């Protein structure tokens, strides 16, 4: 259970990092890439998949 909670904390951290990079990015190609990579992490964080 502790490992599972830690896993979700890690996912939340990765989501935060990618969101932060998305906001700071100046290239649209990178922004699209960040948003695509973000989706599975977001779905896991929301316990949808």
């Amino acid at each position: 259970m502790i490992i599972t909670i830690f896993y979700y904390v890690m996912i939340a951290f990765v989501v935060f990092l990618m969101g932060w990079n998305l906001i700071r990015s100046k290239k649209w190609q990178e922004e699209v890439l960040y948003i695509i990579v973000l989706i599975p992490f977001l779905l896991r964080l929301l316990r949808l998949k």
Partner: protein
Amino acid sequence: MKKNMVRKAAIIVLGIALAASAGVSFYRSRHLQEPVVAGPGVTQVRKLSAYFPALRGTANDANVYVLEGKEPGGTFLVLGGSHPEEPAARLTTWLLAENGVVEIGRIFVLNSANRSATTVTRPGGAYPPDYTIATPWGGQKFRMGDRWSNPLDQWPDPEVFVHYPSRQELAYVDVRNLNRAWPGRADGTLTEKTAYALIQLITKEKVDVVIDLHEAELQYPVISTIVAHQKGLDLAAMASMTLSDEEFKIGMEKSPVELRGLSHREIGDRTDAIPLLFETPEPFLDATRGRTNAKLLLEGKDEFVVRAGKHGLLFEKIDAKGWPIDVRVGRHCSTLLQVLDVWSLDHADKAIVLKNVPKYAEVIAKGVGAFLRDPTRADPKTIYYE
């Protein structure tokens, strides 16, 4: 600057739309209601947690349908949904729970032995979220499911799965495979707890024979067969010979002693019950399949699998007719009925008489859907959800 912000906002909105679309689909699939209309033979419906309270409130607190005869006899346990992506197994248990009437003895039926695995499809596998069986009253929808417990219910996976108690090293993902988790343990993972609960059921109810229903890809050598623990070789051999002579070809194989965690090995080693595992062919599972959709799942037709057969890569025949779901469910029904007959002949004091379950030819002639009951026309007290 303003142009950048507008572009970012547009990309974020697009991302949210994609995530929402996928999320809604996944949520609906995970929470799809699967009704079972308990038939006239069902005398009780229990929860698996009745045998192991730690399962209460978890995804794997499955329904246990009890079919009891008026006369005492033997006891069978039939497991569907050990691997939910093998739909003939679960559908056979639906037919049992909705139609079966036991006159002598008892049969315990689980439609979702690993219920958690029914709530997910294989990530990256492009599986359909569900499939529909045509019925005279429209159709009934079932969750597609996967081979392994849902990662939302059990995570993370280890680098290597070390089976308990043998300490045999197995593939990491099989830590979520019910048919590698036997005999399970009380303080283990959800999958191990499920196996442990089933062992408690087998022991407490003095189950004589456990039938674990499965399907297999045609490129897998263990197919169209009954896998038997050494205690059940005679039973499986007689059933196999009779079926092969009267209905369809089916083999039998001895459970390997060195391969741990499987129902046909561990149940036989650790309880008084005889475990048998039935396999039917499911082209949907073959690695060389074409488009992975509900049509392939139910019709079992695939030109690429046929081509693999022409190159001698398969362990079962396939032609343009494929392996339709009616054929696969029919095989499981007839194999179960045949095993019951052989068992009852050899154990008069522990006989089991089961009626109203269709045999192979009848399932093919009428279709699986003809034996599913319409929940909208049933007494609500008889409806249970998987």
